[in-house]
C-alpha cells in the first residue's frame, strides 16, 4: 500500500516537474527574423548601415531575457538592391531559414520583386527604405512600411516649393527607378496643381558620373526656381557640385534651390561642400532632435560604434524595424501570423524615426517627425517651421 502511494507520489511529482519544466520551454521561442539588404554593389552602404542599427537593437533585446522570454535570431542575406538577386534570396530564405518576419529590401525595385513572394508565403515583410507608392498600394496583407512613401515625401515638397519658397518653375532630376519616378511624379502633381510649371524632367541612370552636361542643359533653360532631386547620395554630391559650377543653384552663386527627400543621409552636406548651401530637404531622422528615444539611441550608438560617429536615417530605420518586431512580440506575437496581426494594430508607437501607425494598406501614416531643413553656409542644418 505504501509502495503504491509512493509510486503514485513519485508519478505525480514527476508529472508536475515535467509540466513545470516544459512550461518555460513552450513560452520561450526564438523569433526568426530574415533580413534582405544590399551588402554588395553600389547600394551596399544601405546594408552596412542597416546592419549596424539592427545589431545595436538586437544587443539590447537579447542581452537580458529577451522579449516575453523570446530571443531573436537574425539571418542577413545580400539582396544587392537587385530584383533578381532579391527574388532568389527571398525564396532560399523561406525554404531554409523559415523566418517569422522579414525586414527589407532597401531599393524599391527589389522590394517590389520580393513582396509577392512573402505575401504568398504569409510571412510579414517590414520595409524601411523603399519609397515607391506601389509597394503598399498593391493590396498586400503582409507588407508593412515605416518609411514615408513617394507621395508622403513628394507632395509636401511640391506644396512648400510653391507656397513657402514662392517657386513657380521647377526642373525635376531623378534616377531612373520606381522610387525616383514616383518621387518626381508626386512633386510634379502637387506643384502643377498649385500653379507651378515643370520646365524639364531629367532622369539619369546609376552609372552616370559626370553631371556637367546635365547642369549645362539646365543652365540653358533660364531661371529655374527649384530643382527637386531624387537619387543616391554619391550621385547627388556630384550633381550638386555640377549645378553649383554651372551657377544654377545658390551654392554656386545662382538663384535655384535644390530640394530633396529622405534619401540623403546625415553627412551629405559635408561631402558636397559649399555646393549644398541653400539645399532644402525633408528629414525624418534628425540627430539633433531632443526626443528621449532619439537621444538614447544616439548615446547607445556612440557607445558601440565610437563617440565621433553620428547615426544616419539608415541606421535609425534599421534599429526601428527590430524595435517594431519586439513590440509585436511584447504584445504576444510568436509567429508570422500573429506578428502580422500585431503590426496591423500598432498605433502611435514612438520610435527614433517617428510615431508608427499603420493604415489598412500597411503604410505608416503619422508624419509627425518629418520636417524640412535648409543647409546653411557653415553646412549645418536650419530647421524650417513648415
Amino acid at each position, binding site marked *: 500500500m505504501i509502495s503504491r502511494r509512493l509510486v503514485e507520489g513519485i508519478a505525480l511529482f514527476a508529472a508536475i516537474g515535467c509540466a513545470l519544466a516544459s512550461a518555460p520551454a513552450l513560452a520561450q521561442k526564438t523569433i526568426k527574423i530574415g533580413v534582405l539588404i544590399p551588402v554588395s554593389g553600389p547600394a551596399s552602404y544601405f546594408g552596412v548601415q542597416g546592419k549596424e542599427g539592427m545589431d545595436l537593437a538586437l544587443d539590447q533585446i537579447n542581452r537580458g531575457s529577451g522579449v516575453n522570454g523570446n530571443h531573436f535570431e537574425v539571418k542577413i542575406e545580400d539582396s544587392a538592391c537587385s530584383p533578381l538577386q532579391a527574388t532568389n534570396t527571398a525564396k532560399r530564405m523561406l525554404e531554409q531559414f523559415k523566418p517569422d518576419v522579414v525586414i527589407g529590401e532597401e531599393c524599391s525595385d527589389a522590394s517590389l520583386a520580393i513582396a509577392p513572394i512573402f505575401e504568398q508565403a504569409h510571412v510579414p515583410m517590414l520595409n524601411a527604405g523603399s519609397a515607391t507608392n506601389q509597394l503598399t498600394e498593391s493590396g498586400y496583407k503582409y507588407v508593412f512600411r515605416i518609411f514615408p512613401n513617394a507621395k508622403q515625401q513628394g507632395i509636401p515638397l511640391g506644396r512648400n516649393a510653391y507656397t513657402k519658397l514662392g517657386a513657380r518653375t521647377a526642373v525635376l532630376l531623378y534616377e531612373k527607378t520606381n522610387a525616383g519616378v514616383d518621387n518626381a511624379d508626386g512633386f510634379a502633381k502637387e506643384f502643377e496643381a498649385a500653379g507651378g510649371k515643370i520646365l524639364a524632367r531629367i532622369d539619369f541612370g546609376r552609372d552616370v558620373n559626370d553631371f556637367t*552636361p546635365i547642369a549645362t542643359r539646365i543652365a540653358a533653360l533660364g531661371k529655374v526656381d527649384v530643382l527637386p532631386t531624387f537619387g543616391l547620395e554619391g550621385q547627388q*554630391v556630384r550633381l550638386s557640385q555640377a549645378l553649383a559650377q554651372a551657377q544654377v543653384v545658390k551654392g554656386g552663386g545662382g538663384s535655384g534651390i535644390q530640394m530633396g527627400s529622405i534619401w540623403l543621409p546625415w553627412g551629405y552636406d559635408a561631402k558636397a561642400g559649399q555646393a549644398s548651401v541653400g539645399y532644402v530637404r525633408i528629414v525624418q531622422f534628425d540627430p539633433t532632435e531632443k526626443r528621449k528615444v532619439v537621444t538614447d539611441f544616439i548615446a547607445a550608438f556612440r557607445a558601440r560604434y565610437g563617440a565621433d560617429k553620428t547615426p544616419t536615417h539608415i541606421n535609425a530605420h534599421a534599429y526601428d524595424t527590430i524595435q517594431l518586431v519586439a513590440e509585436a512580440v511584447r504584445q504576444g506575437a510568436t509567429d508570422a501570423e500573429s506578428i502580422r496581426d500585431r503590426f496591423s494594430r500598432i498605433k502611435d508607437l514612438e520610435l527614433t524615426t517617428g510615431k508608427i501607425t499603420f493604415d489598412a494598406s500597411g503604410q505608416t501614416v503619422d508624419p509627425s517627425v518629418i520636417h524640412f531643413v535648409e543647409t546653411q553656409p557653415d553646412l549645418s542644418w536650419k530647421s524650417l517651421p513648415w
Partner: protein
Amino acid sequence: MPDILALVLQQTLNGVYLGCLYVLVALGLTLIYGVMNQINFAHADFVTIGAFTAFFSASRLATHVLGLPDATAYLLSIFFAMGAGALLGYLINAAVFAPLRDRGDELRPLIATIGVSVLLENGQLALFGPIPYSFDSPFTQHTLRLGKIFFSAQSLLVVVVAALAIGGLHAFMRHTYLGKALRAVSQDRETAGLMGINERYLIGLTIVIASALAGLAGALLGPVIVLTPFAGSSVIVKAFAIVIIGGFGNMEGTIIAGILVGIIEAFTVQYLGSGLIDLVVFVLLLAMLAVRPTGLIAERREENV
C-alpha cells in the same frame, strides 16, 4: 556670343572632357588587347585602386605627413596611383596571368581576369567599406569662365594629362626599342621571339604599362566619380564600347572613338535626355559592328599598337 552657339560650344567641351576620361580608361584595355589579344575584365578594378590610392595619398600622406599644399599633394598622388597600378599589375601578372599563359591556354587567362576582378572588388569592399568617399581635388573647386563658357580646372587637367599620356605612349611605341619590340610581339610573337625579343618580359611590361594607365585614369576620375569600391565598373562598360567602336587594339581608333562617345553623350543629354545615353552609345556600337566590324580605323594588326 549667341546663346545657341555658346550652348553648343559648352556641350562640345563637356563632351571632349568626358571623352578624355573614357580614353584614359580605354587606353590600357586596348594596349593589352593589341599586344596580347586578350581582354582584361579586371581593368575597372585597377582604375578603382588608382582612385583610392590617389585619395589616400593626397588626403593623408602628402597633406598630413609631408605637409604639402593641396594642389601639389593631388598632383603627387597621380604618380602614387600610377605606381600602385603598375605594382599591382606586375604582381598579378607574375602570380596569376603568366603561369596560366605558360600553359599555352588562351581561355584560362581570360577567365582569370574575371576572378581577379571579383577578388579586387571584394577586397576593396572589405578594406574601404561601401560608403561613398568624398574625394575632391583642389582643381575641382576652381571654375574657369570665358564669357558664357565654363569648365573646372580639373577638366582642363584631365584633357592635358590625357594628351600627355597619349603622346607619351605614342612616342614610346614608335621611337623606343621596347616600344618597337612590343609592336613586333603584337604582329607575330613567334617571329619576334626568333629575332631575340623576350616575349614573356614584354607581355609583363604591357600589363604593367596598362595597369599604370588605369591607375592614372583612377587618380583623375576619383574627384569626378562617386568613389566606392565599384567606381571603376561605372565607366568600364563604356570603355569597352569605345575600344570596339575604335577598332579592337587600335590606339588611334580608341582615341577618336572615346572623344566621339563623349561628345555624343553630352549632346544626347542636351537634346534627347540623359536616360537615353546608353541606348544611343550602344546603338552606335551595334551599327559599327554591322557596318564596319573592324572599327573606325580598319584593323591592320601590324599597325595597331
